[in-house]
């Protein structure tokens, strides 16, 4: 039987890896100490693969834009925006057997993600993956959630999908040890006149909901509500899917900083399995 050994929620702002020296040291140290703590845990726990919920940023899709896709290839390429985020480009190992089985099981359980053989990885998946596994020796199964363009999947549906992923992992006869990542957000607004404004009230409320496992509050977030906190706040959908996958475990906030230079409410949460 497979098992989830660790769950993480984290922001994936390009500044995290490209502008480490710009924000106040106190903020950067707080965030990076949390990320390094997780990196250490990954080295100790040695997961067989990483399932990462995150979102594409207009790299894989324009029209149609699928609500949910799974990278089923034996490898993926990225980060396609690697120069911007200072992460070297290249092939990233996938886990075709796990991913294809997950896809089939999804169809049997009422979910319809799109299979994707050739997945371009952008900063959304690459920053957390590289931060926790810079050697790129742990296979990545990327799950791409539409958090970009309306209409987007609901938090309720994504929480349910996360639950399903947990059930699937637990049923795996091969007994993989899996790390879950939900990446994106928290509040930020990209490419608009109000970029740089961070809705810290939204961030604190969201993190509190996670820590206290308030599923109904999480499921009540509408697209309109998320959008009020910035177009990037839609990305909390990935954390919600991770929360669903980590059902029954307790979330702990390791760090939160509204980092103006990264234009992002930057959060790090861990669910210890």
């Amino acid at each position, binding site marked *: 039987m497979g098992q989830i050994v660790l769950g993480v929620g984290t922001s994936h702002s390009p500044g995290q*890896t490209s502008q*480490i*020296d*710009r*924000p*106040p*040291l106190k903020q*950067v*140290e707080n965030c*990076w100490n949390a990320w*390094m703590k997780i990196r250490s845990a990954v080295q100790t726990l040695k997961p067989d693969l990483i399932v990462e919920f995150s979102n594409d*940023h*207009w*790299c894989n899709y*324009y*029209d149609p834009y699928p609500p949910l896709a799974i990278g089923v290839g034996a490898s993926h390429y990225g980060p*396609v925006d*690697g*120069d911007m985020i*200072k*992460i*070297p480009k290249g092939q990233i190992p996938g886990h075709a057997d796990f991913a294809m089985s997950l896809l089939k099981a999804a169809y049997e359980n009422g979910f319809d993600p799109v299979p994707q053989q050739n997945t371009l990885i952008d900063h959304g998946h690459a920053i957390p993956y*590289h*931060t926790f596994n*810079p050697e790129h020796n742990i296979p990545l199964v990327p799950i791409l959630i539409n958090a*970009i*363009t309306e209409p987007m999947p609901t938090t309720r549906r994504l929480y349910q999908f996360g639950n399903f992923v947990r059930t699937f992992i637990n049923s795996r006869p091969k007994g993989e040890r899996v790390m879950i990542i939900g990446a994106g957000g928290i509040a930020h*607004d*990209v*490419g*608009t*006149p109000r*970029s*740089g404004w961070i809705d810290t009230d939204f961030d604190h409320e969201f993190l509190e909901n996670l820590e206290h496992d308030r599923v109904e509050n999480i499921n009540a977030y509408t697209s309109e509500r998320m959008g009020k906190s910035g*177009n990037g706040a839609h990305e909390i959908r990935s954390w919600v899917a991770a929360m669903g996958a980590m059902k029954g475990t307790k979330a702990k906030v390791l760090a939160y900083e509204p980092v*103006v*230079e990264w*234009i992002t409410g930057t959060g790090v949460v861990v669910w210890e399995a």
Partner: protein
Amino acid sequence: MLNVYQVGKLMYILKTPPGIAEWKKDPEAMMDRFGLTEEDRGPIRDKVARPFYDAGLHAHLLGSGSRAMGLEPMAKYGNTSGTPTPEEAEERKKFSDKIATELGLITQTPVGR
């Protein structure tokens, strides 16, 4: 009325190296290929992004597209929470270098940027 769908589609292609190369070679031909009208081309020729934003073009796409096309961007990045003292700046750099080394981050700006 601006054709946001077609302009967005062009900007989507401009996120790729072949797209950028094609744009640099002949922007007008590329705008022909994507069916942009004279009205659509106006803000591009004027080097402004705002009309597309006001017409509903997604801000993410508009940001990267504006960089590729050389338009005045919608967002002004470079926000700062204050100017560091020389000592703080030095400490920040040391910490940044430590992380960059540990993670194998690219420390040199790629040629052409």
